[in-house]
């Protein structure tokens, strides 16, 4: 009921409606920005574990490459997070 009341109030006040839309869009964009890196990290891990299981003597090399790959992929999520923070609060 509270949500409906806020929506009704927002419909009456365009500035409030704009604020609500901006907050929702920023949160939605952050969620979308986190999905891609999540899929990327899953692919990196899946392939790295297959490589380590097939060739355990190369596990150290694979782990180093995997760690860096994950860190680079995470940068995408961090960029999404920073854009969200700047759009929402700055």
């Amino acid at each position, binding site marked *: 009921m509270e949500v409906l009341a806020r929506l009704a109030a927002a419909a009456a006040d365009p500035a409030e409606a704009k604020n609500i839309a901006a907050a929702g869009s920023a949160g939605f964009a952050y969620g979308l920005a986190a999905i891609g890196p999540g899929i990327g990290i899953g692919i990196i891990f*899946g392939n790295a574990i297959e490589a380590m299981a097939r060739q355990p003597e190369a596990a150290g090399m694979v782990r*180093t490459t995997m760690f860096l790959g994950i860190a680079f992929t995470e940068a995408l999520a*961090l960029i999404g*997070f920073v854009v969200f923070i*700047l759009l929402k609060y700055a």
Partner: protein
Amino acid sequence: MTSDQPSPFTTGLTGPAPEMSVSRDLVKRGLLVLPLLCLVAGVIWGMNGAYSCAFAVALVLLNFLLAALIMAWTAPISLALMMGASLFGYLARLGLIFLAVMVVKDFSWVSLQALGCTIIVTHLGLLFWELKYISASLAFPGLKPGKQESSPIQP
């Protein structure tokens, strides 16, 4: 998968953890450039920018350390556990960064522009810088010889 292949559910990795040496090296480099980053942020955004920059660098370095710790802790137990822990660790670390920024965002010394820019620049900058010092060979799986702390793995 045939029965003679090792199962990732029961296979653990023994030996040193190269990601720990890489992340320690990242932290060392991050602490080296911290004064310079604070200075630049201070020039652009003032004292609040410098404080926010220091906070952002601390967040990024803790993020690297936590990622490496999770991998190093779970790798000797099983590969599947390492995968699960790291994937959920990714979500948990993103959540921790989100929480840390949400906690401080209303403080008087926080400049969100400085905080955000420093997070991205430090994260990517340190990684690209670290690539120069990564060996990733069979003999030296982590850092290049002379840069690492432990002796190489003997085949």
